[in-house]
């Protein structure tokens, strides 16, 4: 396995030579629906050997992994993901890789972060990794979020682990000059993550919870209407809940505001070859026709109106 494996350049850049994460990278490496790799990003996708810096619990269910990543991996954009080789753990060895969104990219620090829920065999294996271990990360893969040209106010509506996918868009949108409002939905206060990180990058974070029913659809819709009323959204992004997706589709259509959603699906290859990761989508411009698209290659970020709640 000595092909196209890049090693993290140690030591990571810590100051000087500040590389902007956006420079040279592209949000949409390949044209959606096409099989041919575009020219723009050719060569950035690779198996990267990343050295773990830390891998800590953030609450009872989620862990936060920080790795040193080589330059090509640092070209990852918000919404893109890595396909991770999971080491053997207490529940055994995962046969296939596991997809994981980039939760934070800090090119200046040579650092990528993941936020993940420990679920089954693969994430259990990841959870047992310790500082100094090497993570084989294939990527960056897929299409990230694409903000519209004129973008004043971005809504991030995240549920549960969907936050891991949306979080990096906050800083990215702020850097692009937009105001960012993040609405975080969780079962309970203890499960709300990243509020501080979002505020740090300049987003306005609101919390809605199952505990006090503020996450129910009716109060949530009311809250979004108020937010939109006081400062109209120009882009809606969501991840992690089917019901929230349906709500944003409705509101987006009513307000004529575009949006995107990041979707999950079980994956085989992660690079468009196996067609295992499809979901049905509405054909562009033809609401009656559906077709399958590959989450790994045509997504995982899709137009909010073309996506079918499942």
């Amino acid at each position, binding site marked *: 396995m000595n092909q*196209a494996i890049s090693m993290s350049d140690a030591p990571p850049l810590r100051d000087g030579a500040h590389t902007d994460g956006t420079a040279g990278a592209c949000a949409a490496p390949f044209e959606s629906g096409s099989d041919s*790799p575009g020219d723009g990003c050719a060569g950035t996708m690779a198996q990267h050997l990343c050295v773990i810096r830390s891998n800590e619990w953030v609450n009872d269910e989620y862990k936060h992994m920080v790795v040193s990543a080589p330059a090509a991996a640092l070209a990852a954009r918000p919404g893109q993901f890595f396909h991770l080789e999971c080491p053997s753990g207490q529940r055994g060895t995962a*046969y*296939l890789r596991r997809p994981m969104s980039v939760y934070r990219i800090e090119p200046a620090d040579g650092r990528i972060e993941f936020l993940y829920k420990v679920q089954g065999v693969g994430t259990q294996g990841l959870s047992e990794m310790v500082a100094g271990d090497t993570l084989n990360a294939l990527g960056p893969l897929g299409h990230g979020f694409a903000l519209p040209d004129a973008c004043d106010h971005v809504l991030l509506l995240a549920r549960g682990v969907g936050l891991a996918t949306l979080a990096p868009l906050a800083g990215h949108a702020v850097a692009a000059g937009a105001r960012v409002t993040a609405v975080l939905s969780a079962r309970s206060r203890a499960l709300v993550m990243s509020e501080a990180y979002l505020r740090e990058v300049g987003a306005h974070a609101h919390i809605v919870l199952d505990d006090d029913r503020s996450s129910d659809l009716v109060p949530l819709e009311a809250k979004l209407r108020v937010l939109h009323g006081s400062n109209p959204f120009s882009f809606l992004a969501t991840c992690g809940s089917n019901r929230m997706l349906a709500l944003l589709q409705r509101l987006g259509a009513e307000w004529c505001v575009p949006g995107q959603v990041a979707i999950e699906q*079980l994956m085989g*290859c992660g690079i468009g070859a196996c067609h295992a990761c499809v979901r049905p989508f509405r054909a562009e411009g033809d609401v009656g026709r559906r077709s399958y698209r590959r989450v790994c290659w045509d997504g995982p970020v899709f137009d909010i109106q073309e996506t079918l709640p499942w």
Partner: protein
Amino acid sequence: MVDLSVNLGSLTLANPVMPASGTFAEGNAQFFDLNRLGAIVTKTITDDIRDGVPPPRVAEFRDATLFSIGIPSKGGDYYLKETVPFYRRYSPPLIASISANTIEEFGTLAGKLAGSGVAAIEANVSCPNLKKDGKAFGMDAEATHQVVCAMKSASGLPIWPKMTPNAGNVVEVALAAEEAGAEALVVSNAILAMAIDVETFRPRVANMMGGLTGAATKPIMLRIAYQCAQAVQIPVIGCGGIASGADALEFMLAGCTAIQVGTANFISPTAMPSVIDELTAFCERRGISALRSLIGAMRPHEPIPLQQGGAPL
């Protein structure tokens, strides 16, 4: 310098390693130089445009995967317009894989590919997801014979039918394919299998049944490849659970001339160049100058009669 080249009928490959149909696509070109491959095999196409089956399409086991994809296809025209030109930028021979509903359609699509730059055509008569009277062509020696004849006469290209491990009579099917003029056999496609989620009572792939692939299937696939290689004179291309140079060697020792790597490409997109490197290293370590000298080199255990006279056992 180890000579890795092998002869597959009228084609000579620089090395015996190629992707298994459906486990490799344009995206793989990002990970290594495709010129390193012995041949390039593309995903099965049909001439008509197909969506494939609903998700979930994959279930995973400790050492195997269950996929049910259903041959989504953008059709023959797209293949000629987009896929062929993409891969013709690389030097290894391009092998198309096709499937169809009838013998005639197999012929028509094969004919369409003639002169396109495709070097040979794999006949996917074995896909467990395509149903025709509930029975795949590849389960039936006569049907396979007809498919090969139709494709050969329509295209003039070398035809490589791909055996299905679900047939109890694979050797019969292999002999029929040889008789029909196949230039090589690919042995084998995925094994029909299923799995149920005991919490939801639902099948783990939406199509209920799918193809079991990956490391765990290797001993079965090796047995079938061996049986076919014993029976036919034409070269056999082994496939099933191959992930390393040692796996590839196992198939070559059993009589295969070349091998295909499938599911292992998902685990590492550089699995194929690694297999090539490991084959080279093995030959160097063992002082083997031509890899092809290992084809069929398995040495059975000497028979040890138990009830022998005084002679030492």
